[in-house]
C-alpha cells in the first residue's frame, strides 16, 4: 500500500512536470483556462487562437489569423551584414498578435472575434508588445547562410545549428529563439539564456571566452538602478550578453543596447554597484575623458583615426574582450585588449599591441584633436610625432629615451625603461583604477603638475615629475647642474618644470636637433627671445653642459652657460 502511495505521488509529480511544459500552462493559452491575465471570457479552445483544421489562412501551419501589415521599421546598424526584410514566415505569424495591431480574438474560424476578459482587444502595451517599430528588436526574416557567417566573421556557420536553435528555410525567424508552445526557460526561449547560452548558438565573438564580462561572478549590490532589469540572473557571467544588450525593445536601437546613452551601458555596473572598482567617480571628475559629452557619434565602424571628436568607453575598451591581465610597457594590458588603434607609422591596426596605439586614434592625426595647453617654441599637437624615436628628445613611450645619463631616475626605472602614456595621464588618488578616466588635475594627470609661472616649489606641486625623477637629485644633487640650473630655476625663481621642458617630446623642424635635447622646448608665454641677440635658443654642449639664449622673468640670458663641475661654479 505504501509503495502504491509513492507510485501515485510520483505519477502526480511527473504529471506536474509535464504539465509545466504544456502550452495549456503558458500565457499562450489564451482560452478561458489560461494561467495569464490576458485570456478569453468563455472560449475553451486553446489552439484556435492561432490554428484551425480547415479553411486556414494561406500561411502555414494552418494559420487562423489575418496577416498584419508589412510596414515595419526594420533593424539596421553599421555593423550588421544581415539584411532583414519585412517580416516573413513564422515571424509574420507572431507579429499578428505581438505588433499590437490585431485583436487577439480575431481568428478566421469565428464569425466574430473571440471576446477577452476585461474587454481587451489588441495586446496591451508592455514587453510582449513589440509594436511596428522593429528597429529596437533583434532582426528577423533575414537569410542566415554560410556567406553571412563569413561576411560577419563572428557568427556560427548555420550548418552547426542542429540543436534547439533552428532556422526556417535558411531564414532566421522569431522561432529560432522562441518556441511558442513551450515555456521551459521563460519568454518561451528554446534554450536557457543563462550564460547567454542561446545567444552563443549563433554569436561567436572574438576574445569573448576570456572576457571578464563572460566569466565574472560579481553580483549586484541591490542599489538601484537594477543593471539586469530584463533577466533573472544574478552574476555578470550569467547575464553575459544581456549585461549590455537587450534582444527586444532595446533603448539603444543600434546593436540593441540596454541604453541609448553609450556610457550608461557601462556605468550601470561600473559604478560600484556590481564592480568593486567605481569608474563613475573617476569619469565625473573635472578633468576627464568626457564620455557624457557625446551621444550617437561613436560608431564601431568609424575610421581608426577618429574624424569627429568624441569619446565613449567603447573607444578605448572592447567589452567583448576586456579582462584583467597585466602587461609591461609599452604592451597593452587586458583592459584595452582587442581595440583598434593607429601604429607608430600612422597606419591602422585592428587590435592594438601597444597602449600608445590606442591614444594615437585621437591624439595624433585626427582633425580637431585636443591642443596643447602650453604655447611652445615648436608647437606640436600630434603626439605620434612628439614620441617619434628619431626626435632629439621624448619621454620613452614608444622606445627607450635618447638621454643615456639621467641620474634622477628612481629605481627600477633606468635610461632603458619604457613608460606608458597612462603613467602620467591617469585618474588621481590612492587606489584609483588605472587609466585616464578622470582626475582633479588638468590634462587628467595622475598627480599634481603645476604649470603656472611663479609656483612655489614643493614635492606635491610637481609630484607627477618627482614620482619618477628623484626630487633631491633634481634640486640638490651633486654637481653644478642640479644646484645652479635646476634649484635656481625651480626653487629660487619659482619656475615650473613645464616652462622649459615639453613633457611629451619635441618634434623639431629640420636643423634644430641640438636645440631640443632633454625635452627643452620653451613655454613662449613665459620665455621670450633674448633682447640682445634676438635669439630664443637652448644649445646643448654635451654632458650637463649648455647655453641658453632667452629672456625670462625680466632677465636676459645672452647667453647663460652651464657646464659639468662642482656646485655654484660658473
Amino acid at each position, binding site marked *: 500500500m505504501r509503495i502504491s502511495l509513492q507510485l501515485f505521488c510520483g505519477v502526480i509529480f511527473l504529471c506536474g512536470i509535464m504539465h509545466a511544459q*504544456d*502550452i*495549456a500552462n503558458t500565457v499562450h493559452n489564451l*482560452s478561458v*483556462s489560461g494561467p495569464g491575465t490576458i485570456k478569453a471570457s468563455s472560449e*475553451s*479552445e*486553446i*489552439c*484556435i487562437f492561432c*490554428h484551425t*483544421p*480547415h*479553411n*486556414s*489562412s*494561406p500561411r*502555414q*501551419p*494552418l494559420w487562423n489569423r489575418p496577416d498584419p501589415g508589412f510596414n515595419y521599421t526594420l533593424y539596421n546598424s553599421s555593423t550588421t551584414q544581415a539584411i532583414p526584410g519585412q517580416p516573413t*514566415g513564422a515571424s509574420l505569424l507572431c507579429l499578428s498578435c505581438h505588433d499590437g495591431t490585431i485583436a487577439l480574438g480575431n481568428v478566421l474560424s469565428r464569425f466574430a472575434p473571440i471576446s477577452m476578459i476585461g474587454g481587451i482587444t489588441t495586446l496591451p502595451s508592455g514587453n510582449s508588445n513589440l509594436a511596428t517599430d522593429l528597429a529596437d528588436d533583434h532582426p528577423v526574416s533575414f537569410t542566415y547562410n554560410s556567406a553571412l557567417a563569413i561576411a560577419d566573421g563572428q557568427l556560427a556557420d548555420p550548418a552547426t545549428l542542429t540543436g534547439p536553435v533552428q532556422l*526556417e*528555410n535558411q531564414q532566421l525567424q522569431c522561432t529560432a529563439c522562441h518556441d511558442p*508552445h*513551450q515555456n521551459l526557460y521563460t519568454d518561451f526561449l528554446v534554450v536557457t539564456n543563462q550564460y547567454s547560452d542561446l545567444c552563443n548558438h549563433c554569436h561567436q565573438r572574438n576574445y569573448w571566452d576570456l572576457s571578464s564580462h563572460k566569466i565574472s561572478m560579481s553580483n549586484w549590490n541591490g542599489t538601484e538602478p537594477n543593471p539586469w532589469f530584463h533577466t533573472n540572473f544574478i552574476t555578470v557571467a550569467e547575464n553575459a550578453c544581456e549585461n549590455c544588450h537587450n534582444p527586444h525593445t532595446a533603448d539603444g536601437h543600434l546593436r540593441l543596447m540596454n541604453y541609448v546613452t553609450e556610457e550608461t551601458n557601462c556605468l550601470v555596473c561600473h559604478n560600484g554597484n556590481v564592480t568593486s572598482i567605481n569608474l563613475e567617480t573617476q569619469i565625473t571628475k573635472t578633468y576627464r575623458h568626457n564620455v557624457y559629452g557625446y551621444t550617437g557619434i561613436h560608431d564601431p565602424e568609424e575610421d581608426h583615426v577618429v574624424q569627429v571628436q568624441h569619446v565613449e568607453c567603447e573607444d578605448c575598451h572592447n567589452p567583448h574582450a576586456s579582462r584583467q591581465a597585466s602587461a609591461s610597457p609599452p604592451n597593452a594590458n587586458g583592459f584595452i585588449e582587442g581595440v583598434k588603434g593607429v601604429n607608430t607609422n600612422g597606419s591602422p591596426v585592428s587590435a592594438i599591441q601597444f597602449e600608445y596605439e590606442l591614444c594615437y586614434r585621437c591624439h595624433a592625426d585626427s582633425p580637431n584633436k585636443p591642443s596643447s595647453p602650453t604655447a611652445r617654441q615648436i608647437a606640436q599637437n600630434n603626439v605620434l610625432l612628439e614620441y617619434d624615436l628619431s626626435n632629439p628628445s621624448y619621454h620613452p613611450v614608444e622606445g627607450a629615451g635618447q638621454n643615456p645619463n639621467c641620474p634622477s631616475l628612481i629605481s627600477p626605472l633606468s635610461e632603458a625603461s619604457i613608460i606608458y602614456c597612462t603613467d602620467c595621464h591617469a585618474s588621481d588618488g590612492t587606489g584609483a583604477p588605472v587609466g585616464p578616466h578622470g582626475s582633479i588635475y588638468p590634462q587628467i594627470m595622475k598627480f599634481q603638475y603645476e604649470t603656472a609661472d611663479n609656483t612655489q616649489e614643493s614635492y606635491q606641486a610637481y609630484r607627477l615629475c618627482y614620482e619618477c625623477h628623484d626630487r633631491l637629485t633634481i634640486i640638490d644633487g651633486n654637481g653644478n647642474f642640479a644646484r645652479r640650473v635646476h634649484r635656481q630655476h625651480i626653487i629660487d625663481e619659482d619656475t615650473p618644470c613645464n616652462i622649459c621642458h615639453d613633457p611629451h617630446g619635441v618634434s623639431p623642424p629640420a636643423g634644430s636637433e641640438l636645440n631640443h635635447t632633454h625635452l627643452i622646448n620653451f613655454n613662449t608665454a613665459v620665455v621670450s627671445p633674448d633682447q640682445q641677440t634676438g635669439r630664443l635658443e637652448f644649445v646643448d654642449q654635451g654632458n650637463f653642459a649648455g647655453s641658453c639664449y632667452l629672456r625670462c622673468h625680466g632677465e636676459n640670458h645672452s647667453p647663460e652657460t652651464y657646464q659639468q663641475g662642482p656646485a655654484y661654479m660658473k
Partner: protein
Amino acid sequence: MKKQLFCISLLLLFTAGIGSGFGQSIVGSAHDFSQASWNTTGQICIVCHAPHNADVSVNDAPLWNHQSTVATFTPYSSASLNATVGQPDASSKLCLSCHDGTVAVDNFGGISSGTFYLTGSTLIGTNLNDDHPVSFVYDAALAIADGGLADPTSTNSGLGGTISQDLLIGNKVQCASCHDVHNASGIDNLLIKSNAQSDLCLTCHVK
C-alpha cells in the same frame, strides 16, 4: 466493503460518461439527408451506402453508393511538416466525394446528373493546403521525427484505447480520425471527441 463501493462509484461514473453520447446518431444529424429536397428516396443511408452492387473503386469503401471524386488535390505542405502527405485515399476520398465540391451530393445510386453542390463552410475544395493533412502514415517514427507529436502506439486517445487503435485507420490519419461521419458522439462538427480545451488537437499534438 470500501473497495466495493469505490468500484461501484467508478462504474457509475463510467456509464454516465458513455450515457451522455447515447441517443446520438446519424438520425437528425447534419448527415441525415432523408428530408433533403434533392433526396427523393426519403432514406438516410442510401446517399452513401447500398446493400448490393456497391462501388468498389475506392479501397476500403464500405458498400459505396455515391459517385467518387476523380479530382487531383493540392495536398497540405509546410516547412515544419515531417509527415509525407500524398493524394487523399480510402475513406478521406469518400468524404471528399461530396466535400471537394466537384461531385454533386445527389450523385448517388448510379445517378450522375445531380446539381446540388456543397458551399460555405462545409466545402473543403480541392486545395487541401488550408486543411489539416490527411491520408498520411502516423507512426512512432513520425512522432520522433516531429518531436511535437505523441507516439500513437502508446498514447491513450481518451476513447478507451491508443491513438492508433481509436483514431487511425490503417496507421493513417484520415478525415475520420477527427470526425465521426455517423455522429455517434453527438458533438458539434461531427467530432469524434470534444475539442473543449483543444482536447482533440492535444490528443496527438504534444504542445
